[in-house]
């Protein structure tokens, strides 16, 4: 317990003193995970909407695959992305391994199924009658989809939060594809692992608390957008 107290003090000290390395790590974590989440929206929303609104053979299988993807183990994603990005690998010529871009890619793979799956569920929970009504009132297909997305915006923001929460907190993939390089690919989670293995438990706790605070602030902002107009 005393250790956690020390960690809290250390966290406050690091933040207040404007410790350059801690701030850099914090911004990098936010930047990588926010980019990955935004990209996952670009992939996940159209895909989830398409699967929700169309009927095709093998759709059940597709939905099951998406739902499985929502729980993809980060360490498995990390391993496969690493192998693809190796110099000997499929995309080796891009020289992306051990860069923030590689971490964005791995986090995108983790977040995209989550956003897809939750979008799918969000769109499907809008009653089918509503869709038919829109079409009957003369809405084009694009207008209908747009209205549905607006209707489903609350659960969709939940999808954003779930996607962001998954990637900012994962460590396995970031460690493998990023390499935890000081000043370049070290983020809050991987720095926490490193400080723990060094025996610097107070710093590790401080970094954990900073991560929790960051997650809270981001979710607070998203919740404000989600609930704002109603509150």
């Amino acid at each position, binding site marked *: 317990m005393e250790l956690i107290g020390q960690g809290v003090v250390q966290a406050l000290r690091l933040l207040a003193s404007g410790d350059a390395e801690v701030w850099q790590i914090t911004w990098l974590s936010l930047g990588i995970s926010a980019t990955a989440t935004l990209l996952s929206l670009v992939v996940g929303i159209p895909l989830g909407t398409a699967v929700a609104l169309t009927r095709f053979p093998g759709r059940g299988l597709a939905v099951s695959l998406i739902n499985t993807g929502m729980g993809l183990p980060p360490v498995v994603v990390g391993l496969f992305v690493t192998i693809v990005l190796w110099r*000997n690998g499929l995309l080796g010529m891009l020289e992306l391994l051990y860069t923030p871009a590689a971490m964005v890619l791995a986090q995108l793979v983790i977040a995209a199924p989550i956003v897809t799956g939750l979008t799918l569920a969000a769109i499907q929970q809008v009653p089918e009658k509503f869709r038919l009504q829109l079409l009957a009132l003369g809405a084009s297909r694009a207008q209908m989809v747009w209205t549905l997305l607006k209707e489903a915006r609350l659960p969709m923001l939940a999808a954003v939060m779930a996607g962001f929460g998954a990637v900012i907190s994962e460590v396995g993939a970031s460690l493998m594809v990023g390499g935890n390089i000081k000043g370049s690919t070290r983020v809050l989670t991987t720095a926490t692992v490193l400080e723990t293995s060094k025996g610097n438990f107070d710093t590790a706790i401080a970094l954990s608390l900073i991560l929790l605070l960051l997650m809270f602030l981001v979710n607070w902002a998203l919740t404000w957008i989600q609930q704002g107009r109603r509150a």
Partner: protein
Amino acid sequence: MRTLLTLIALFALAGPAWAQSSTVILSTTTSTQDSGLLDVLVPMFEKKTGLTVKTISVGTGQALALAARGEADVTLAHAPSVERKYVEEGKLLNRRLVMYNDFVIIGPPEDPAKIKGLPKALDAMKRIAERRSRFVSRGDKSGTHTLELGLWKQAGVEPNGPWYIESGQGMGQTLGIANDRRAYTLTDRATWLAFQKRVSLPILVEKDKPLLNIYSVMEVNPANGPRVNTAGGKAFAEFILAPETQAVIRTFGMDKFGQPLFVPIAGRTDADFQ
């Protein structure tokens, strides 16, 4: 998929800093990183040469395997027997000794296997196995694990059974487990010193020749894969063996632990430590 590839291409274009010739990938062991030594040496090297080092700190087994696949340009490891195998296969080139520190056997103060003060590490290992006293192994193919397995082999012991616990984790976590289970374990001195505050297991056996922990630097054969930065790897190897770097290694750790953590040995050979 096309969107994805376009994005990846964009990232690649946006990152001229990753051009291979200016980046050196160093695969190394966790101990060099956890001790803080590389945090001192890498910036020195970068300042001197203008190259950027990407340090990939993993267990020695993985560090060597990555280098052998051409996924790194230079490697700093501490598992001489495994290193020599890669050198014989021609995967790694120009193995040269850099420094050493030492391993110690630690355990609970009540010392159930009665190994305290034994001059020979092998005798200590034999007694631990005979008494079936709990022993925590790294179990991760790290340099420490490789050395531990070598000791068991020389002691003629096949370690298994409920007394033999494989943590599968780094040295720090393994020390924590040993402390918790009141077990014996083999650790490098630097990590043990770093964990003084959390681990109450004293050193029971030390300063025996087989407990020397020798670090070597090896360059990567460019034939191992595409895009190996041979010149960069060579530059790092030359740097770490240079007299000024060796002087920094000689005093590293004095401020924090009151004793140096490594002894520099550039220019010596394996024969000097047999």
